[in-house]
Protein backbone atom coordinates (compact mmCIF):
# COMPACT_ATOMS: atom_id res chain seq x y z
CA UNK A 1 0.00 0.00 0.00
CA UNK A 2 1.50 3.29 -1.08
CA UNK A 3 -1.19 5.29 0.57
CA UNK A 4 0.54 7.43 3.18
CA UNK A 5 -0.18 10.15 0.68
CA UNK A 6 -3.50 11.21 -0.66
CA UNK A 7 -3.52 12.82 -4.10
CA UNK A 8 -5.86 15.76 -4.65
CA UNK A 9 -6.38 16.29 -8.35
CA UNK A 10 -7.85 19.45 -9.78
CA UNK A 11 -8.64 20.24 -13.38
CA UNK A 12 -8.99 23.93 -12.60
CA UNK A 13 -6.72 26.14 -10.56
CA UNK A 14 -9.69 27.61 -8.72
CA UNK A 15 -8.93 28.07 -5.05
CA UNK A 16 -12.50 27.26 -4.01
CA UNK A 17 -12.21 23.94 -5.84
CA UNK A 18 -8.91 23.17 -4.13
CA UNK A 19 -10.13 24.20 -0.68
CA UNK A 20 -13.16 21.93 -0.98
CA UNK A 21 -10.85 19.01 -1.76
CA UNK A 22 -8.49 19.87 1.07
CA UNK A 23 -11.41 20.00 3.47
CA UNK A 24 -12.51 16.48 2.52
CA UNK A 25 -8.96 15.21 2.91
CA UNK A 26 -8.51 16.93 6.25
CA UNK A 27 -11.86 15.74 7.64
CA UNK A 28 -11.48 12.12 6.56
CA UNK A 29 -7.75 11.45 6.25
CA UNK A 30 -6.08 13.87 8.69
CA UNK A 31 -3.07 11.61 9.20
CA UNK A 32 -2.15 11.42 5.52
CA UNK A 33 0.19 13.60 3.56
CA UNK A 34 -1.61 15.67 0.96
CA UNK A 35 -0.26 16.19 -2.52
CA UNK A 36 -2.08 18.53 -4.84
CA UNK A 37 -1.86 17.79 -8.56
CA UNK A 38 -3.00 20.74 -10.63
CA UNK A 39 -3.67 21.25 -14.29
CA UNK A 40 -3.93 24.95 -14.95
CA UNK A 41 -2.59 26.77 -17.97
CA UNK A 42 -3.20 30.30 -16.73
CA UNK A 43 -0.02 31.66 -15.09
CA UNK A 44 -1.87 34.15 -12.88
CA UNK A 45 -4.08 31.44 -11.46
CA UNK A 46 -1.03 29.28 -10.78
CA UNK A 47 0.62 32.09 -8.79
CA UNK A 48 -2.58 32.80 -6.93
CA UNK A 49 -3.01 29.15 -6.01
CA UNK A 50 0.59 28.91 -4.81
CA UNK A 51 0.03 31.83 -2.46
CA UNK A 52 -3.36 30.65 -1.24
CA UNK A 53 -2.33 27.06 -0.51
CA UNK A 54 1.09 27.83 0.93
CA UNK A 55 1.67 25.75 4.10
CA UNK A 56 -1.68 23.97 3.84
CA UNK A 57 -0.58 20.97 1.75
CA UNK A 58 2.57 18.90 1.78
CA UNK A 59 3.25 19.22 -1.92
CA UNK A 60 1.91 20.76 -5.10
CA UNK A 61 2.72 19.43 -8.54
CA UNK A 62 1.79 21.75 -11.36
CA UNK A 63 1.31 19.69 -14.48
CA UNK A 64 2.08 21.59 -17.67
CA UNK A 65 0.83 20.13 -20.92
CA UNK A 66 2.40 21.98 -23.79
CA UNK A 67 -0.06 22.75 -26.56
CA UNK A 68 -3.12 22.43 -24.33
CA UNK A 69 -4.74 25.61 -23.12
CA UNK A 70 -8.14 24.27 -22.13
CA UNK A 71 -9.17 21.18 -20.18
CA UNK A 72 -9.73 18.49 -22.80
CA UNK A 73 -10.81 15.39 -20.88
CA UNK A 74 -8.91 12.91 -23.08
CA UNK A 75 -5.60 14.73 -22.92
CA UNK A 76 -6.00 15.43 -19.20
CA UNK A 77 -6.89 11.81 -18.58
CA UNK A 78 -3.74 10.64 -20.38
CA UNK A 79 -1.54 13.19 -18.63
CA UNK A 80 -2.81 12.19 -15.18
CA UNK A 81 -2.48 8.49 -16.00
CA UNK A 82 1.15 9.11 -17.04
CA UNK A 83 1.72 11.09 -13.84
CA UNK A 84 0.38 8.27 -11.64
CA UNK A 85 1.90 5.37 -13.59
CA UNK A 86 4.81 5.06 -11.18
CA UNK A 87 2.85 5.55 -7.99
CA UNK A 88 2.12 2.30 -6.23
CA UNK A 89 -1.66 1.94 -5.58
CA UNK A 90 -2.51 5.65 -5.40
CA UNK A 91 -5.52 7.05 -3.57
CA UNK A 92 -6.81 9.88 -5.76
CA UNK A 93 -9.54 12.41 -4.98
CA UNK A 94 -11.29 14.89 -7.27
CA UNK A 95 -14.27 17.09 -6.54
CA UNK A 96 -17.36 15.60 -8.07
CA UNK A 97 -18.78 17.32 -11.13
CA UNK A 98 -19.79 16.01 -14.53
CA UNK A 99 -16.48 17.03 -15.99
CA UNK A 100 -14.33 15.72 -13.16
CA UNK A 101 -16.22 12.44 -13.12
CA UNK A 102 -15.30 12.03 -16.77
CA UNK A 103 -11.63 12.71 -16.08
CA UNK A 104 -11.71 10.45 -13.01
CA UNK A 105 -13.21 7.63 -15.08
CA UNK A 106 -10.33 7.93 -17.53
CA UNK A 107 -7.70 7.98 -14.79
CA UNK A 108 -9.18 4.89 -13.09
CA UNK A 109 -9.49 3.02 -16.37
CA UNK A 110 -5.91 3.87 -17.35
CA UNK A 111 -4.54 2.77 -13.98
CA UNK A 112 -6.82 -0.26 -13.54
CA UNK A 113 -7.97 1.36 -10.32
CA UNK A 114 -11.34 1.01 -8.60
CA UNK A 115 -13.57 4.05 -8.95
CA UNK A 116 -16.61 5.45 -7.20
CA UNK A 117 -18.08 8.79 -8.26
CA UNK A 118 -19.99 11.32 -6.13
CA UNK A 119 -19.12 9.78 -2.80
CA UNK A 120 -19.48 10.89 0.79
CA UNK A 121 -18.04 9.82 4.13
CA UNK A 122 -14.95 7.85 3.13
CA UNK A 123 -13.69 5.87 6.10
CA UNK A 124 -10.74 3.55 6.46
CA UNK A 125 -11.43 0.11 7.85
CA UNK A 126 -8.23 -1.92 8.05
CA UNK A 127 -6.96 -2.29 4.51
CA UNK A 128 -10.29 -1.23 3.06
CA UNK A 129 -11.82 2.09 2.30
CA UNK A 130 -15.59 2.31 2.71
CA UNK A 131 -17.51 5.01 0.88
CA UNK A 132 -21.17 6.03 0.65
CA UNK A 133 -22.84 6.73 -2.65
CA UNK A 134 -26.38 7.37 -3.78
CA UNK A 135 -27.95 4.69 -5.89
CA UNK A 136 -31.04 4.90 -8.10
CA UNK A 137 -30.57 8.69 -8.34
CA UNK A 138 -30.96 9.00 -4.59
CA UNK A 139 -33.77 6.54 -3.89
CA UNK A 140 -31.23 4.31 -2.15
CA UNK A 141 -27.89 4.70 -0.49
CA UNK A 142 -25.05 2.31 -1.10
CA UNK A 143 -21.85 1.53 0.72
CA UNK A 144 -18.98 0.33 -1.39
CA UNK A 145 -15.92 -1.35 0.06
CA UNK A 146 -12.67 -0.76 -1.79
CA UNK A 147 -9.53 -2.77 -1.21
CA UNK A 148 -6.64 -0.35 -0.69
CA UNK A 149 -4.18 -2.90 -2.02
CA UNK A 150 -5.19 -1.53 -5.40
CA UNK A 151 -5.42 2.00 -6.76
CA UNK A 152 -8.57 3.98 -5.92
CA UNK A 153 -10.07 7.01 -7.65
CA UNK A 154 -12.92 8.87 -5.97
CA UNK A 155 -14.91 11.96 -6.83
CA UNK A 156 -16.14 13.50 -3.60
CA UNK A 157 -19.14 15.64 -2.76
CA UNK A 158 -18.36 18.80 -0.80
CA UNK A 159 -18.51 18.69 2.99
CA UNK A 160 -21.51 20.31 4.64
CA UNK A 161 -19.56 21.77 7.58
CA UNK A 162 -16.35 23.75 7.31
CA UNK A 163 -13.05 22.24 8.49
CA UNK A 164 -9.97 24.00 9.72
CA UNK A 165 -7.03 23.33 7.41
CA UNK A 166 -3.49 22.91 8.71
CA UNK A 167 -1.27 25.95 8.23
CA UNK A 168 2.10 24.63 9.30
CA UNK A 169 3.18 22.44 6.40
CA UNK A 170 6.34 22.91 4.37
CA UNK A 171 4.83 22.92 0.92
CA UNK A 172 7.12 21.58 -1.78
CA UNK A 173 6.19 22.97 -5.19
CA UNK A 174 7.20 21.23 -8.40
CA UNK A 175 6.53 22.03 -12.02
CA UNK A 176 6.16 18.94 -14.11
CA UNK A 177 6.12 18.98 -17.89
CA UNK A 178 3.84 16.23 -19.08
CA UNK A 179 5.10 14.28 -22.05
CA UNK A 180 1.65 13.40 -23.25
CA UNK A 181 1.08 14.12 -26.92
CA UNK A 182 -1.82 16.47 -27.46
CA UNK A 183 -4.10 15.17 -30.18
CA UNK A 184 -7.26 17.16 -30.64
CA UNK A 185 -9.63 17.39 -33.59
CA UNK A 186 -8.36 20.06 -36.01
CA UNK A 187 -11.53 22.07 -35.63
CA UNK A 188 -11.89 21.60 -31.86
CA UNK A 189 -13.50 24.44 -29.98
CA UNK A 190 -13.94 24.86 -26.25
CA UNK A 191 -16.56 27.25 -24.90
CA UNK A 192 -17.42 28.21 -21.36
CA UNK A 193 -21.20 28.08 -21.21
CA UNK A 194 -21.60 29.91 -17.95
CA UNK A 195 -20.15 33.32 -17.49
CA UNK A 196 -19.46 34.10 -13.84
CA UNK A 197 -20.26 37.76 -14.39
CA UNK A 198 -23.85 37.06 -15.42
CA UNK A 199 -26.54 35.76 -13.14
CA UNK A 200 -26.85 32.01 -13.69
CA UNK A 201 -27.93 28.81 -11.96
CA UNK A 202 -24.48 28.35 -10.46
CA UNK A 203 -24.11 31.72 -8.83
CA UNK A 204 -27.67 32.99 -8.22
CA UNK A 205 -28.85 33.23 -4.63
CA UNK A 206 -32.45 32.86 -5.75
CA UNK A 207 -33.64 30.36 -8.36
CA UNK A 208 -37.17 30.27 -9.74
CA UNK A 209 -37.86 26.99 -11.51
CA UNK A 210 -40.88 25.74 -13.39
CA UNK A 211 -42.26 22.34 -14.29
CA UNK A 212 -44.99 20.75 -16.31
CA UNK A 213 -47.52 22.39 -14.01
CA UNK A 214 -46.91 25.69 -15.86
CA UNK A 215 -48.78 24.05 -18.75
CA UNK A 216 -47.25 25.83 -21.76
CA UNK A 217 -44.22 27.63 -23.11
CA UNK A 218 -45.95 30.95 -22.49
CA UNK A 219 -46.69 29.88 -18.92
CA UNK A 220 -43.06 28.96 -18.38
CA UNK A 221 -41.77 32.18 -19.91
CA UNK A 222 -43.53 34.23 -17.24
CA UNK A 223 -40.79 33.02 -14.91
CA UNK A 224 -38.29 35.26 -16.74
CA UNK A 225 -40.22 38.34 -15.71
CA UNK A 226 -40.32 37.13 -12.13
CA UNK A 227 -36.62 36.29 -12.33
CA UNK A 228 -35.83 39.86 -13.36
CA UNK A 229 -37.77 41.35 -10.49
CA UNK A 230 -36.32 38.96 -7.92
CA UNK A 231 -32.78 38.97 -9.32
CA UNK A 232 -33.19 35.22 -9.71
CA UNK A 233 -31.93 32.69 -12.25
CA UNK A 234 -34.54 30.58 -14.05
CA UNK A 235 -34.45 26.77 -13.89
CA UNK A 236 -36.58 23.99 -15.32
CA UNK A 237 -37.61 20.39 -14.81
CA UNK A 238 -37.04 17.86 -17.50
CA UNK A 239 -40.47 17.83 -19.18
CA UNK A 240 -40.09 21.59 -19.74
CA UNK A 241 -36.83 20.98 -21.58
CA UNK A 242 -38.19 17.95 -23.45
CA UNK A 243 -41.18 19.99 -24.62
CA UNK A 244 -38.84 22.66 -25.95
CA UNK A 245 -40.10 25.40 -23.61
CA UNK A 246 -36.57 25.95 -22.29
CA UNK A 247 -32.99 25.20 -23.24
CA UNK A 248 -31.43 22.06 -21.73
CA UNK A 249 -28.87 24.22 -19.90
CA UNK A 250 -31.70 25.22 -17.53
CA UNK A 251 -32.45 21.65 -16.47
CA UNK A 252 -31.98 20.82 -12.81
CA UNK A 253 -31.53 17.29 -11.53
CA UNK A 254 -29.83 14.01 -12.26
CA UNK A 255 -29.46 14.77 -15.95
CA UNK A 256 -29.02 18.48 -15.46
CA UNK A 257 -27.43 20.72 -12.90
CA UNK A 258 -26.94 20.44 -9.17
CA UNK A 259 -27.38 23.84 -7.62
CA UNK A 260 -27.02 25.38 -4.16
CA UNK A 261 -28.94 28.67 -4.00
CA UNK A 262 -30.12 30.36 -0.82
CA UNK A 263 -33.70 29.82 -1.87
CA UNK A 264 -35.27 27.66 -4.56
CA UNK A 265 -38.81 28.19 -5.83
CA UNK A 266 -40.44 25.20 -7.55
CA UNK A 267 -43.52 26.19 -9.55
CA UNK A 268 -45.58 23.23 -10.76
CA UNK A 269 -42.80 20.69 -10.15
CA UNK A 270 -43.88 17.36 -8.63
CA UNK A 271 -40.60 16.55 -6.87
CA UNK A 272 -39.37 13.18 -8.15
CA UNK A 273 -35.90 12.12 -6.99
CA UNK A 274 -34.41 12.69 -10.42
CA UNK A 275 -35.28 16.35 -10.01
CA UNK A 276 -34.73 16.85 -6.29
CA UNK A 277 -31.23 15.35 -6.29
CA UNK A 278 -30.24 18.60 -8.00
CA UNK A 279 -31.57 20.84 -5.21
CA UNK A 280 -30.31 18.97 -2.16
CA UNK A 281 -27.93 21.77 -1.34
CA UNK A 282 -30.51 24.55 -1.60
CA UNK A 283 -30.76 26.21 1.82
CA UNK A 284 -34.50 26.81 1.54
CA UNK A 285 -37.08 25.22 -0.75
CA UNK A 286 -40.39 26.88 -1.55
CA UNK A 287 -42.90 24.72 -3.43
CA UNK A 288 -45.95 25.95 -5.27
CA UNK A 289 -48.21 23.14 -6.39
CA UNK A 290 -51.94 22.66 -6.88
CA UNK A 291 -51.76 19.12 -5.49
CA UNK A 292 -51.43 19.11 -1.72
CA UNK A 293 -50.00 15.58 -1.90
CA UNK A 294 -47.22 16.44 -4.36
CA UNK A 295 -43.95 14.86 -3.10
CA UNK A 296 -42.15 18.21 -3.36
CA UNK A 297 -43.98 19.39 -0.21
CA UNK A 298 -42.13 16.72 1.80
CA UNK A 299 -38.87 18.49 1.06
CA UNK A 300 -40.13 22.04 1.14
CA UNK A 301 -39.53 24.51 3.92
CA UNK A 302 -42.42 26.64 2.66
CA UNK A 303 -45.28 25.86 0.36
CA UNK A 304 -48.32 27.29 -1.29
CA UNK A 305 -51.09 24.96 -2.34
CA UNK A 306 -52.54 26.62 -5.39
CA UNK A 307 -52.24 27.50 -9.04
CA UNK A 308 -48.61 28.22 -9.93
CA UNK A 309 -49.47 30.76 -12.61
CA UNK A 310 -51.61 32.77 -10.22
CA UNK A 311 -48.81 32.79 -7.67
CA UNK A 312 -46.27 33.94 -10.27
CA UNK A 313 -48.59 36.73 -11.34
CA UNK A 314 -49.15 37.90 -7.79
CA UNK A 315 -45.42 37.87 -7.10
CA UNK A 316 -44.82 39.89 -10.28
CA UNK A 317 -47.51 42.48 -9.55
CA UNK A 318 -46.47 42.86 -5.94
CA UNK A 319 -42.93 43.43 -7.27
CA UNK A 320 -41.42 41.16 -4.66
CA UNK A 321 -37.76 41.95 -4.60
CA UNK A 322 -34.78 40.16 -3.21
Amino acid at each position, binding site marked *: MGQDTIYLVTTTGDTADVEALQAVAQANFPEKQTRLVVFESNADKVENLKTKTANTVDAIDFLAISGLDYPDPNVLGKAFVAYFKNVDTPLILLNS*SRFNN*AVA*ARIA*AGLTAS*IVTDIEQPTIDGTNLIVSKKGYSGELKRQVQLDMN*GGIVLTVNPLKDPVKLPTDKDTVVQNIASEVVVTLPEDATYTLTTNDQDLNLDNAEVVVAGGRGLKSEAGFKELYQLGKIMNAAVGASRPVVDSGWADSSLMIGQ*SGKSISPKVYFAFGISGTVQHTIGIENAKCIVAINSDKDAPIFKL*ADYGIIGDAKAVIQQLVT*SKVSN
Partner: protein
Amino acid sequence: MNIVVYIKAVVDPDKAKNDLDLAKGTKEDKLALIINPYDKQAIEAALQLKEKYTGKVTAVSLGSDLATDKILRDALSLGVDEGIQISNDDFESLSSYSPALGTVLAKAPVDDVDYYITGREAGDDNQSITGASIAAALDVDFVDNVDEVEYNDDETLTLTSRWDKSELKGTYKQKPLVLSIKDTANTPRLPSFKAKMQAKKATLKHFKVSDLPDIDVARIKAIADRATTINLAKPEVASKETVLFNLNDDENAVSELVADLKKHSIL
Protein backbone atom coordinates in the same frame (compact mmCIF):
# COMPACT_ATOMS: atom_id res chain seq x y z
CA MET B 1 -20.40 0.47 -40.71
CA ASN B 2 -20.38 -1.70 -37.60
CA ILE B 3 -21.81 -0.23 -34.47
CA VAL B 4 -21.89 -1.80 -31.02
CA VAL B 5 -24.25 -0.39 -28.42
CA TYR B 6 -23.87 -1.53 -24.82
CA ILE B 7 -27.07 -1.75 -22.81
CA LYS B 8 -27.77 -2.64 -19.20
CA ALA B 9 -30.83 -4.07 -17.48
CA VAL B 10 -31.68 -2.15 -14.31
CA VAL B 11 -34.41 -2.60 -11.76
CA ASP B 12 -37.16 -0.04 -12.21
CA PRO B 13 -36.32 2.60 -9.56
CA ASP B 14 -39.92 2.68 -8.31
CA LYS B 15 -39.75 -1.08 -7.67
CA ALA B 16 -36.18 -1.03 -6.35
CA LYS B 17 -37.00 1.44 -3.60
CA ASN B 18 -39.86 -0.70 -2.35
CA ASP B 19 -38.10 -4.05 -2.51
CA LEU B 20 -34.45 -3.99 -1.56
CA ASP B 21 -33.97 -7.62 -2.57
CA LEU B 22 -34.69 -6.60 -6.14
CA ALA B 23 -32.24 -3.71 -5.89
CA LYS B 24 -29.56 -5.94 -4.40
CA GLY B 25 -30.13 -8.60 -7.02
CA THR B 26 -30.80 -11.32 -4.43
CA LYS B 27 -34.23 -11.63 -6.04
CA GLU B 28 -34.94 -11.33 -9.74
CA ASP B 29 -38.26 -10.42 -11.31
CA LYS B 30 -38.51 -10.05 -15.05
CA LEU B 31 -41.34 -7.57 -14.72
CA ALA B 32 -39.23 -5.26 -12.56
CA LEU B 33 -36.37 -5.14 -15.05
CA ILE B 34 -36.15 -2.33 -17.55
CA ILE B 35 -33.62 -1.12 -20.03
CA ASN B 36 -31.43 1.49 -18.36
CA PRO B 37 -33.24 4.74 -19.28
CA TYR B 38 -29.97 6.39 -20.36
CA ASP B 39 -29.33 3.59 -22.85
CA LYS B 40 -32.37 4.55 -24.91
CA GLN B 41 -30.55 7.55 -26.32
CA ALA B 42 -27.49 5.37 -26.95
CA ILE B 43 -29.60 2.95 -28.99
CA GLU B 44 -31.19 5.82 -30.87
CA ALA B 45 -27.76 7.28 -31.70
CA ALA B 46 -26.63 3.86 -32.98
CA LEU B 47 -29.73 3.49 -35.14
CA GLN B 48 -29.31 6.97 -36.58
CA LEU B 49 -25.70 6.16 -37.50
CA LYS B 50 -26.82 3.03 -39.27
CA GLU B 51 -29.57 4.84 -41.13
CA LYS B 52 -27.22 7.59 -42.20
CA TYR B 53 -24.35 5.43 -43.43
CA THR B 54 -25.85 1.91 -43.71
CA GLY B 55 -24.43 -0.80 -41.51
CA LYS B 56 -25.24 -3.09 -38.67
CA VAL B 57 -26.02 -2.40 -35.04
CA THR B 58 -25.19 -5.04 -32.43
CA ALA B 59 -26.46 -4.61 -28.89
CA VAL B 60 -24.34 -6.19 -26.15
CA SER B 61 -25.55 -6.73 -22.62
CA LEU B 62 -23.78 -8.21 -19.62
CA GLY B 63 -25.80 -9.67 -16.80
CA SER B 64 -28.07 -12.55 -15.89
CA ASP B 65 -29.68 -14.39 -18.79
CA LEU B 66 -33.15 -13.38 -17.70
CA ALA B 67 -32.24 -9.70 -17.60
CA THR B 68 -30.23 -9.49 -20.80
CA ASP B 69 -32.79 -11.55 -22.73
CA LYS B 70 -35.51 -9.08 -21.87
CA ILE B 71 -33.73 -5.88 -22.73
CA LEU B 72 -31.94 -7.18 -25.81
CA ARG B 73 -35.34 -8.06 -27.27
CA ASP B 74 -36.49 -4.53 -26.47
CA ALA B 75 -33.47 -3.26 -28.40
CA LEU B 76 -34.21 -5.56 -31.34
CA SER B 77 -37.77 -4.28 -31.49
CA LEU B 78 -36.37 -0.79 -32.02
CA GLY B 79 -34.31 -1.83 -35.05
CA VAL B 80 -31.10 -3.20 -33.59
CA ASP B 81 -29.88 -6.05 -35.85
CA GLU B 82 -28.32 -8.45 -33.40
CA GLY B 83 -28.21 -9.06 -29.66
CA ILE B 84 -25.34 -10.59 -27.69
CA GLN B 85 -25.84 -11.79 -24.12
CA ILE B 86 -22.77 -12.06 -21.94
CA SER B 87 -23.52 -13.90 -18.77
CA ASN B 88 -21.48 -13.17 -15.71
CA ASP B 89 -22.00 -16.60 -14.18
CA ASP B 90 -18.28 -16.89 -13.56
CA PHE B 91 -18.43 -14.00 -11.13
CA GLU B 92 -20.41 -13.14 -8.11
CA SER B 93 -20.57 -9.65 -9.42
CA LEU B 94 -18.97 -7.43 -11.97
CA SER B 95 -19.74 -3.98 -10.79
CA SER B 96 -19.15 -0.59 -12.29
CA TYR B 97 -16.85 0.23 -9.36
CA SER B 98 -14.21 -1.92 -10.94
CA PRO B 99 -12.22 -1.37 -14.15
CA ALA B 100 -12.77 -5.06 -14.89
CA LEU B 101 -16.16 -4.11 -16.33
CA GLY B 102 -14.68 -2.37 -19.38
CA THR B 103 -12.14 -5.14 -19.84
CA VAL B 104 -14.96 -7.65 -20.22
CA LEU B 105 -17.26 -5.48 -22.33
CA ALA B 106 -14.43 -4.59 -24.72
CA LYS B 107 -14.07 -8.29 -25.56
CA ALA B 108 -17.55 -8.60 -27.02
CA PRO B 109 -17.03 -10.69 -30.14
CA VAL B 110 -17.94 -8.27 -32.95
CA ASP B 111 -15.56 -7.68 -35.85
CA ASP B 112 -14.38 -4.41 -37.38
CA VAL B 113 -16.30 -2.11 -35.13
CA ASP B 114 -16.40 1.58 -36.09
CA TYR B 115 -18.28 2.95 -33.12
CA TYR B 116 -18.83 1.64 -29.62
CA ILE B 117 -21.69 3.48 -27.93
CA THR B 118 -22.89 3.64 -24.33
CA GLY B 119 -25.42 5.73 -22.43
CA ARG B 120 -24.13 8.45 -20.14
CA GLU B 121 -24.67 6.49 -16.95
CA ALA B 122 -26.68 3.63 -15.52
CA GLY B 123 -29.79 4.57 -13.57
CA ASP B 124 -29.04 2.10 -10.77
CA ASP B 125 -25.47 2.97 -9.84
CA ASN B 126 -25.13 6.46 -11.37
CA GLN B 127 -21.43 5.90 -11.96
CA SER B 128 -20.88 7.16 -15.56
CA ILE B 129 -17.66 5.24 -16.07
CA THR B 130 -18.46 2.47 -18.56
CA GLY B 131 -17.45 4.29 -21.75
CA ALA B 132 -14.09 5.33 -20.32
CA SER B 133 -13.49 1.83 -19.07
CA ILE B 134 -14.21 0.28 -22.48
CA ALA B 135 -12.11 2.88 -24.31
CA ALA B 136 -9.13 2.22 -22.04
CA ALA B 137 -9.44 -1.54 -22.53
CA LEU B 138 -9.56 -1.07 -26.32
CA ASP B 139 -6.95 1.69 -26.23
CA VAL B 140 -9.05 3.94 -28.47
CA ASP B 141 -10.30 7.49 -28.17
CA PHE B 142 -13.38 8.34 -26.17
CA VAL B 143 -15.85 11.18 -26.52
CA ASP B 144 -18.36 11.47 -23.70
CA ASN B 145 -21.33 13.53 -22.63
CA VAL B 146 -22.17 13.79 -26.33
CA ASP B 147 -25.21 16.02 -26.60
CA GLU B 148 -25.25 16.65 -30.34
CA VAL B 149 -24.17 14.55 -33.30
CA GLU B 150 -23.66 15.93 -36.82
CA TYR B 151 -23.26 13.26 -39.48
CA ASN B 152 -20.77 14.40 -42.12
CA ASP B 153 -20.72 13.08 -45.69
CA ASP B 154 -17.23 11.62 -45.30
CA GLU B 155 -18.51 9.40 -42.46
CA THR B 156 -16.81 11.53 -39.81
CA LEU B 157 -18.86 12.86 -36.92
CA THR B 158 -18.91 16.35 -35.48
CA LEU B 159 -19.68 15.91 -31.81
CA THR B 160 -20.62 18.40 -29.13
CA SER B 161 -19.96 17.32 -25.55
CA ARG B 162 -21.65 19.34 -22.85
CA TRP B 163 -20.40 19.47 -19.26
CA ASP B 164 -21.48 21.43 -16.21
CA LYS B 165 -19.98 24.70 -17.35
CA SER B 166 -18.35 24.09 -20.68
CA GLU B 167 -18.83 22.67 -24.13
CA LEU B 168 -16.40 20.94 -26.47
CA LYS B 169 -17.02 20.54 -30.17
CA GLY B 170 -14.91 18.84 -32.79
CA THR B 171 -14.86 16.55 -35.81
CA TYR B 172 -13.58 13.07 -35.06
CA LYS B 173 -12.06 11.15 -37.95
CA GLN B 174 -10.52 8.25 -36.05
CA LYS B 175 -12.16 4.85 -35.85
CA PRO B 176 -12.92 2.95 -33.82
CA LEU B 177 -14.19 5.50 -31.39
CA VAL B 178 -16.10 5.08 -28.13
CA LEU B 179 -19.00 7.47 -27.56
CA SER B 180 -21.17 8.00 -24.55
CA ILE B 181 -24.42 9.77 -25.26
CA LYS B 182 -26.24 12.21 -23.00
CA ASP B 183 -29.91 11.58 -22.38
CA THR B 184 -30.78 14.95 -23.89
CA ALA B 185 -29.02 14.16 -27.20
CA ASN B 186 -32.02 12.79 -29.08
CA THR B 187 -35.58 11.55 -28.77
CA PRO B 188 -35.66 7.75 -28.77
CA ARG B 189 -38.11 6.09 -31.14
CA LEU B 190 -40.83 3.70 -30.01
CA PRO B 191 -41.22 0.14 -31.27
CA SER B 192 -44.08 -0.95 -33.49
CA PHE B 193 -46.30 -3.81 -32.36
CA LYS B 194 -45.08 -5.93 -35.26
CA ALA B 195 -41.44 -5.31 -34.44
CA LYS B 196 -42.11 -6.29 -30.84
CA MET B 197 -43.62 -9.59 -31.94
CA GLN B 198 -40.69 -10.30 -34.25
CA ALA B 199 -38.17 -9.49 -31.52
CA LYS B 200 -39.81 -12.10 -29.30
CA LYS B 201 -38.90 -14.81 -31.79
CA ALA B 202 -35.39 -13.60 -32.59
CA THR B 203 -32.33 -15.65 -31.66
CA LEU B 204 -29.78 -14.04 -29.41
CA LYS B 205 -26.10 -14.94 -29.31
CA HIS B 206 -24.88 -16.06 -25.93
CA PHE B 207 -21.42 -16.09 -24.36
CA LYS B 208 -20.10 -16.65 -20.90
CA VAL B 209 -17.38 -14.31 -19.73
CA SER B 210 -14.92 -17.20 -19.89
CA ASP B 211 -15.90 -17.86 -23.54
CA LEU B 212 -14.73 -14.44 -24.66
CA PRO B 213 -11.52 -14.27 -26.71
CA ASP B 214 -8.21 -13.51 -24.94
CA ILE B 215 -9.74 -13.19 -21.55
CA ASP B 216 -7.82 -13.69 -18.31
CA VAL B 217 -10.66 -14.66 -16.03
CA ALA B 218 -8.50 -15.03 -12.93
CA ARG B 219 -7.04 -11.55 -13.33
CA ILE B 220 -10.43 -9.99 -13.99
CA LYS B 221 -11.84 -11.69 -10.96
CA ALA B 222 -8.97 -10.44 -8.81
CA ILE B 223 -9.55 -6.88 -9.99
CA ALA B 224 -13.32 -7.13 -9.62
CA ASP B 225 -12.99 -8.42 -6.05
CA ARG B 226 -11.33 -5.18 -5.00
CA ALA B 227 -14.66 -3.34 -5.12
CA THR B 228 -17.85 -4.67 -3.56
CA THR B 229 -21.17 -3.23 -2.46
CA ILE B 230 -21.55 -4.07 1.21
CA ASN B 231 -24.81 -2.33 1.94
CA LEU B 232 -27.79 -0.92 0.07
CA ALA B 233 -30.54 0.77 2.03
CA LYS B 234 -33.05 3.56 2.04
CA PRO B 235 -31.42 6.83 2.97
CA GLU B 236 -32.50 8.46 6.19
CA VAL B 237 -34.53 11.53 5.43
CA ALA B 238 -34.81 14.20 8.02
CA SER B 239 -38.49 15.00 8.29
CA LYS B 240 -39.12 18.65 7.66
CA GLU B 241 -41.70 21.03 9.05
CA THR B 242 -43.28 22.73 6.08
CA VAL B 243 -44.91 26.12 6.53
CA LEU B 244 -47.92 25.76 4.26
CA PHE B 245 -50.26 28.38 2.83
CA ASN B 246 -53.35 27.58 0.82
CA LEU B 247 -54.28 29.95 -1.97
CA ASN B 248 -57.63 28.24 -2.39
CA ASP B 249 -58.99 29.43 0.94
CA ASP B 250 -56.65 32.30 1.73
CA GLU B 251 -56.38 35.08 -0.82
CA ASN B 252 -53.41 36.60 1.01
CA ALA B 253 -51.37 33.38 0.85
CA VAL B 254 -48.73 34.87 -1.46
CA SER B 255 -48.13 38.02 0.55
CA GLU B 256 -48.07 36.03 3.78
CA LEU B 257 -45.42 33.73 2.31
CA VAL B 258 -43.34 36.69 1.14
CA ALA B 259 -43.63 38.36 4.55
CA ASP B 260 -42.51 35.16 6.26
CA LEU B 261 -39.54 34.74 3.90
CA LYS B 262 -38.49 38.33 4.51
CA LYS B 263 -38.86 37.96 8.25
CA HIS B 264 -36.45 35.03 8.18
CA SER B 265 -34.05 36.89 5.86
CA ILE B 266 -34.56 34.30 3.16
CA LEU B 267 -35.55 37.01 0.70
